[in-house]
């Protein structure tokens, strides 16, 4: 995926609202392979923040906190996952408190003010839903979080 592909379309289309506790993200549905119910809680593995199911094979489960960092355990309120395949072909399941598919949604995108950002800031844009900010996110942005963990 090129850097240009990080820029999301603001055209009308299908988006998915992803909520992790108070964090709310907006992602194009085309970047999500599947949305599934989470029947049981994934458990910590040998690699910090990479959670697994006892019978889930190599599938990696990831959990975001309010401040867009990866958690080492899965809170009780996460019961739905989105499957995202990384550039390397690895299947990852991201655990959420809520997902909502938005049909024919046309987000009005705003830039996060430059004074708030630093070079590592992963989120750069937001839209407004129900008078609250929802941060624009791509699968690429989530993959960058994985790289951060792998390099620690």
């Amino acid at each position, binding site marked *: 995926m090129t850097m240009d592909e990080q820029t999301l379309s603001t055209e009308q289309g299908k988006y998915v609202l992803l909520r992790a506790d108070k*964090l709310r993200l907006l992602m194009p549905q085309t970047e999500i392979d599947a949305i599934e119910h989470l029947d049981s809680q994934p458990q910590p593995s040998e690699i910090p923040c990479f959670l697994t199911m006892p019978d889930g094979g190599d599938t990696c489960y990831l959990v975001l906190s*309010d*401040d*867009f960092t990866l958690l080492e355990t899965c809170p009780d309120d996460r019961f739905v996952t989105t499957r995202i395949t990384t550039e390397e072909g690895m299947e990852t399941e991201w655990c959420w408190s809520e997902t909502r598919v938005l049909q024919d949604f046309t987000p009005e995108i*705003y830039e*996060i*003010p*430059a*004074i*708030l*950002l*630093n*070079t*590592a*800031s*992963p*989120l750069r844009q*937001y839209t*407004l839903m129900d*008078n*609250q*900010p929802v*941060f624009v996110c791509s699968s690429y942005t989530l993959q960058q979080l994985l790289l951060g963990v792998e390099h620690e």
Partner: protein
Amino acid sequence: MSDQETLLQEKEGASVQEELKIVGKTAPARILEFATGHRLALPIHTTLEIVEDPEIFPVPGTAPHGMGILPWQESWIPVIDLGRLLLQQDTPLEEGKVKYVLTLAYQRVAGEPLEYCAVLLPRLPETVFVSDEMACKLPDDSPLWPRVSLSCFTYKGEPTPIVDTARLFGRSYETAE
């Protein structure tokens, strides 16, 4: 322009000059104590409103001085912790809560629309009149002062930079950290 209009402009100019003499060439400034013992002054026309119990929405992954965004007057504006930005120390807050913020205006380029931001306000600001006799050197507690200050004066025995809001807030600090 008619002679009458020219005369009127000259008279208006003269009255402004007289006014300056009356107040002894002082200018009002709003003083913020953004951290204990650390103050800055802002041109009074840039300070707009004190918002009580602001509903600040955090923005994940921001710079340490970025507190989030605040809905204010039909728009969303950034909220800045000046203690973090200028001194790399948290602004002290009562019970850890943001009770007040001060909204500010700035204009990057003349003729462009005004832009807005807000700063944490640990204490209510004071208004003082500043004169040339109060001028002093900039303090050395922040590397940013030379880049963002218009001048500096002594207030309560401490150097207090007068900050240009456009220089302070109308830029990115991505490369500075």
